[in-house]
C-alpha cells in the first residue's frame, strides 16, 4: 500500500469526522445543550485533563522521535492514541459529572450517535478482513471503537448511579 493511499485514508477519516461534527453542530444550533454553572465548571476541568493527556501524548512522541526509538508510523500511532486517550478522559470526566451532552435530557440520541460511530468504525476493518485484506491503518478504526465502547460503559455506569440516586431521593 502506497504512502499516498495511507495519507489519503487518514485525510478522509479526518474530513469525515469534521463533516460529522459540523452536521451535529448545525443540527444542535437551534437547541443548544444548556449547562448550568456546576456543569460548565466540570467541563472546564475535563477540558484541562484532556488537554494535559494530549500534551502528554505529544511529549512522548517528541521524546521518541528525538531519541529515534520509534519509526514514523509508530510515532503517528502514539500520537493518535494520545488524542483518543484525551477524548476518553474528556468524555469520562464530563459523564461522571453529568456534564456531557445533556446526559439526562436525550439519552437515546446520545447512545444512538455513539452506536452509529461504533458501527461506522467497525465496518471498514471487518469489511477489509472479510475481503481477505489487512489495511495497515485499520487499527485506528479499532482504537476508535475501543474508545466508544469505554465511553458507552462509563455512560452505563453513570446512568445506573443516577437511577439509584433518583430512587434514594424518592424514598427520602
Amino acid at each position: 500500500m502506497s504512502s499516498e493511499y495511507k495519507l489519503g485514508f487518514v485525510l478522509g477519516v479526518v474530513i469525515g469526522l469534521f463533516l460529522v461534527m459540523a452536521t451535529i453542530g448545525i443540527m444542535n444550533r437551534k437547541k443548544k445543550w444548556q449547562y448550568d454553572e456546576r456543569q460548565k465548571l466540570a467541563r472546564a476541568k475535563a477540558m484541562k485533563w484532556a488537554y494535559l493527556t494530549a500534551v502528554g501524548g505529544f511529549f512522548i512522541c517528541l521524546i521518541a522521535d528525538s531519541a529515534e526509538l520509534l519509526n514514523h508510523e509508530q510515532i503517528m500511532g502514539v500520537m493518535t492514541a494520545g488524542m483518543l486517550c484525551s477524548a476518553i478522559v474528556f468524555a469520562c470526566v464530563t459523564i461522571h459529572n453529568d456534564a456531557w451532552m445533556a446526559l439526562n435530557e436525550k439519552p437515546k440520541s446520545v447512545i444512538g450517535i455513539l452506536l452509529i460511530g461504533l458501527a461506522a468504525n467497525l465496518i471498514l476493518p471487518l469489511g477489509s478482513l472479510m475481503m481477505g485484506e489487512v489495511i495497515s491503518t485499520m487499527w485506528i478504526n479499532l482504537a476508535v471503537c475501543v474508545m466508544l465502547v469505554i465511553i458507552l460503559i462509563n455512560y452505563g455506569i453513570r446512568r445506573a448511579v443516577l437511577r439509584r440516586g433518583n430512587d434514594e431521593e424518592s424514598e427520602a
Partner: protein
Amino acid sequence: MKNLKLKSARAAKDLSQQQLADLIGVSRQTISAIEKGDYNPTINLCIAICRALDKTLDELFWED
C-alpha cells in the same frame, strides 16, 4: 459539609430536587451536589435558590 438547611427548606415547600432544579434552571444533580456539600454554588445560584424557597441567604447558607 451537608447543607441540611437547604434540604429541609425544600422539603418544607414540598418540592423534589427535580422541581427545585426546574424552578431555578439547573440540573437535578447540581441541587443534589449542593445538598450533599459536594459543590459550592456561586452567589447568583444561592440567590436564585433563596428566591425559589422564600428564604434569605443567611437562613440557607450561613454556618454558625
